[in-house]
């Protein structure tokens, strides 16, 4: 960005990632983020921003810098152990013709 001046000091608080549960029994899914001074305000902001129309029955807010994520560059080798094990899938196994319920 074109920016010759010092970064803003009005930070509006740290960043929190927001996860919403849309209905009973559903997993919490990432919805976006909010800025807030503390956890309580983060929850209120998340409600106002991501749940104005009953989109959520439960909210999680997590300090953004507390999230540890895998890196796309290493995705190949990192997920490899799970990618080459066909024997973990039911289709790997042969079942005699005519046998049902397997």
């Amino acid at each position, binding site marked *: 960005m074109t920016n010759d001046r010092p970064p803003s000091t*009005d930070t509006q608080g740290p960043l929190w990632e927001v996860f919403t549960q849309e209905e009973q029994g559903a997993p919490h899914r990432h919805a*976006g983020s909010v800025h807030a*001074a503390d956890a309580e305000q983060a929850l209120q902001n998340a409600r106002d921003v991501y749940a104005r129309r009953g989109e959520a029955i439960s909210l999680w807010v997590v300090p953004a810098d507390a999230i540890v994520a895998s890196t*796309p560059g290493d995705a190949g080798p990192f997920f490899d152990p799970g990618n080459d094990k066909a024997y973990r899938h039911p289709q790997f196994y042969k079942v005699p013709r005519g046998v049902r319920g397997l």
Partner: protein
Amino acid sequence: MDQKPQAVAEDPAKLAEFQARIDRGESIEPKDWMPERYRRQLTRMMSQHAHSEVVGMLPEGNWITRAPSLRRKMSLIAKVQDEAGHGLYIYCGAETLGVDRADLIDQLLDGRAKYSSIFNYPTLSWADMGVIGWLVDGAAIVNQTVLAKASYGPYARAMIRICKEENFHKRQGYEIVATLANGTPAQKAMVQDAVNRWWWPSLMMFGPSDTDSPNSAELLRWKVKHKTNDELRQRFVNLTVPQAAAVDLTLPDPDLRYDEATKNWEFGAIDWAEFHEVIRGNGPCNRERLEARRAAHENGRWVRDAAAAYAAKHGAASATNAA
């Protein structure tokens, strides 16, 4: 550090792989490698878009206290609140590109950033609330429906969320328009006047013509955009002409005519000189909008300071309790 936009020498192999991902229809996520120029273009587009949502609250916010009924007032408050939410969704997406929201807001407040020229026109009557919902949100929907397929994941996801909410904006606007159009002669004249004033600026919302749109080719190649400005503008006109006819309102364009061959409503020439003047800061309300935005930001400062002070005190207290 020199941060002026300039050509960065990108690794040709990485660039080719990036384009191949785009061509396969994959979505680009924040931690993925991306050309510096892609990052810059998206930062520019997303921050301008977020600013537009935020500034877009002002022309309508003006009328909340003057809404003609409680029902209309509740709808208008909810709509303006949605626009604040839209701004926040997109700022949140822009931050994944490595910029700080506070810096983006600084750029808006000190006049360095751009936002949609439409919000620099005045809202003169209650009918403008109807026409803005119908035409301005209607045009935004046409734009945003396509942006919901943008190659940058966080932008596309923000657009999907926004599109779900925009239909309410358009319908509440059209309801106001239809009510006035079926009202007294004075009400009908008021809404026709609003249509006359907002029609051309609404067409300008899609940006310069394809022949004068320097960024378009690149954005299309990167699938940030999927349609050109002129294609989207035409789609909007085709959708809107029958909606105007349905409530017996005319659109202020003597050249408007249906072309049987193309199935398009052909429209007259847009006054691009006016468009560029408004972009340059010389629209009827540019100064007023920025002043209102700055005042709102300053008036909210004590809330941010109080929240920070409370968090600091509370954090210190719980640290002591834990010890």
